């Protein structure tokens, strides 16, 4: 309605309707574009490789739910899942705690070398992680950590820590100094202020880094395939790779494995999506 309470002219209403329709079409097309491969994969996960080879896009008939049992029990996906969970949860926990503490220190305390440390961290984000692969391999061998979940966890921590510190520092620096001063006046020390003020207020940003790190490490393949050789220490991405032979690929089993591996990612989104959005838009809206 216009300011005088009358409806806008028909041409105006038509234009509005057309623009909304165009927007809906674009969103629908994008949804199909992103969702279709996932749905295709989901249908393949309950079909045998023979059925998939006969007709790539056919609807499952019948549904081979046993593929998940075969993948989980017979193909050791339970072990891979457990290994991935241990490595990723441990790495994300360390990265989040250490990263938040480091970001808080860099954002809040004035000390000699503060900006140099920040610059070094930032520079490590710029370079591709592959250039550290050989040196990390050698370090793990030297310290007896090669082919161990602990070694892989430490590598994951080193990979994700700079970006985490960088993202959190930007958020923490925007927390007003007065809040810290008020907490000091209320009788709290530095560690208590970090725990009771910085962590709760920074939770949207922390949740953002947490989910980004989780997804990135959960899907990480390169470092895992180089640094882990024992079958019983494989993580999920390497486990899925085991279904790919030189002459034969068990597509149905790969699809079932991928479906198993995406469940935690979907759950992470479900639980953290609201905080993720708040973290990504923090500062954008006053």
């Amino acid at each position, binding site marked *: 309605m216009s300011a005088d309470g009358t409806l806008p002219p028909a041409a105006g209403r038509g234009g509005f309707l057309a623009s909304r329709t165009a927007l809906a079409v674009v969103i629908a097309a994008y949804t199909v574009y992103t969702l279709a491969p996932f749905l295709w994969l989901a249908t393949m996960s309950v079909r045998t490789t023979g059925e998939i080879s006969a007709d790539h896009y056919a609807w499952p008939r019948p549904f081979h739910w046993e593929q998940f049992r075969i993948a989980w029990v017979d193909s050791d996906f339970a072990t891979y899942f457990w290994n991935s969970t241990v490595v990723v949860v441990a790495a994300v926990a360390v990265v989040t705690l250490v990263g938040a503490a480091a970001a808080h220190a860099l954002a809040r305390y004035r000390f000699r070398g503060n900006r140099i440390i920040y610059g070094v961290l930032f520079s490590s984000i710029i370079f591709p992680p592959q250039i550290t692969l050989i040196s990390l391999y050698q370090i793990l061998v030297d310290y007896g950590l090669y082919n161990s979940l602990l070694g892989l966890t430490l590598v994951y921590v080193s990979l994700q820590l700079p970006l985490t510190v960088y993202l959190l520092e930007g958020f923490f620096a925007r927390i*007003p100094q*007065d*809040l810290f*001063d*008020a*907490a*000091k*006046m*209320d*009788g*709290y*020390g530095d560690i*208590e202020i970090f725990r009771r*003020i910085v962590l*709760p*207020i920074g*939770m949207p940003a922390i949740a953002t880094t947490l989910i980004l790190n989780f997804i990135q490490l959960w899907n990480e393949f390169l470092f895992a395939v180089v640094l882990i050789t024992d079958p019983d220490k494989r993580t999920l991405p390497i486990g899925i790779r085991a279904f790919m032979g030189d002459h034969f690929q068990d597509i149905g089993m790969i699809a079932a494995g991928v479906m198993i591996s995406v469940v935690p990612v979907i759950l992470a989104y479900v639980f953290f999506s609201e905080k993720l959005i708040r973290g990504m838009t923090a500062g954008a809206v006053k």
Partner: protein
Amino acid sequence: MAVVQLSKICKRYGSGGPVVVDNVDVTVGDGEFMVLLGPSGCGKSTTLRMIAGLETISSGTLAINGRTMNDVPAKDRDIAMVFQSYALYPHMTVAENLAFGLRRRRTPPAEVKRRVGETAAILGLVPYLDRKPQALSGGQRQRVALGRAMVREPMVFLFDEPLSNLDAALRVNTRNELIKQHHRLASTMIYVTHDQVEAMTMGTRICVMNGGRVAQVGRPLDVYWNPADTFVARFLGSPPMNLFTVPLSGGDRIRTPAIETPLARWTPAALAPFAGREVVLGVRAEDLHLAAASAGAAETGRIRGRVFAVEPLGAETLLAVETEGGTECTARLPRDTRADVGAVVDLFFRPDAAFLFDARTTAAIPAHVIPANTMVAGGPGRAGAMP
């Protein structure tokens, strides 16, 4: 209950860095409401933060009740502070904000509940105890910030421009609320502001600061009627005091084409050192009148100039005049005053309403007669600053 003593307090950032607080010597008495007043960058907030323990003291001594506090951490000083931004914890409810400081001091839960309830009742916050700060208005947030300080029952309250984020109407209400709470608590309070109205209405005493130094300390009306220098004279008063740099002719009067006045408040002995030199004549805007008769004195001072702006404000009219020498001055006149822009007018004032300052040092030249209007205003302790 506390006496806060600042002895030659200095603040310097880095070795050889700028001195932002320079030799501040002030004692705030028990139960006193001291206002640190000055323009931005004068060091008043830094001084307050040093008292709070949020800034280190470069040199000098801070003592509370005789105990040196320089190296005592902020959390152990038993001081509460209200910040300009309120600094409420956004993830906590009003009740949690109020209780936060008490919990750290291991106050029993029943006592925490009692004090939070009592403070919330005094400040009218009971309906909002379960709300988070973002669900409160500016005035309510300000009251929570005040409550957070009150609930701790500290020795000293510090306020860092707590009203500057409020709109004009709310500022007046909250100002009165603070005055009321000061009377109720009878605690020592130190209040930083750049707003002279807040300083004049709230302070038991005010400490005017300029360039990191204390320019003058005294009761509000004492300082208003006996400014120590031209800075204080212009900083207190709205419009600011009119100042004219003029030669002192004939020993006891000023006579230029634009300004003519006897100097009735000063003895010849007081003026003798300035004979033949330039001095600064000060006249407040409210002491200027368009007609000599209304000045009410046998011999009046006179300023002649050309009107360049007329500002009718409803309750009064401000007349802006430029003298022949190019100096601008403002007169606060009755609301029905009529004047044309461009017209030449004579502004009259009682000679005993004039102030005189040394043009070289800007310091006030002591007078033996108290300024006009102070008898009417009834400012306490005026004679204290008299020679």
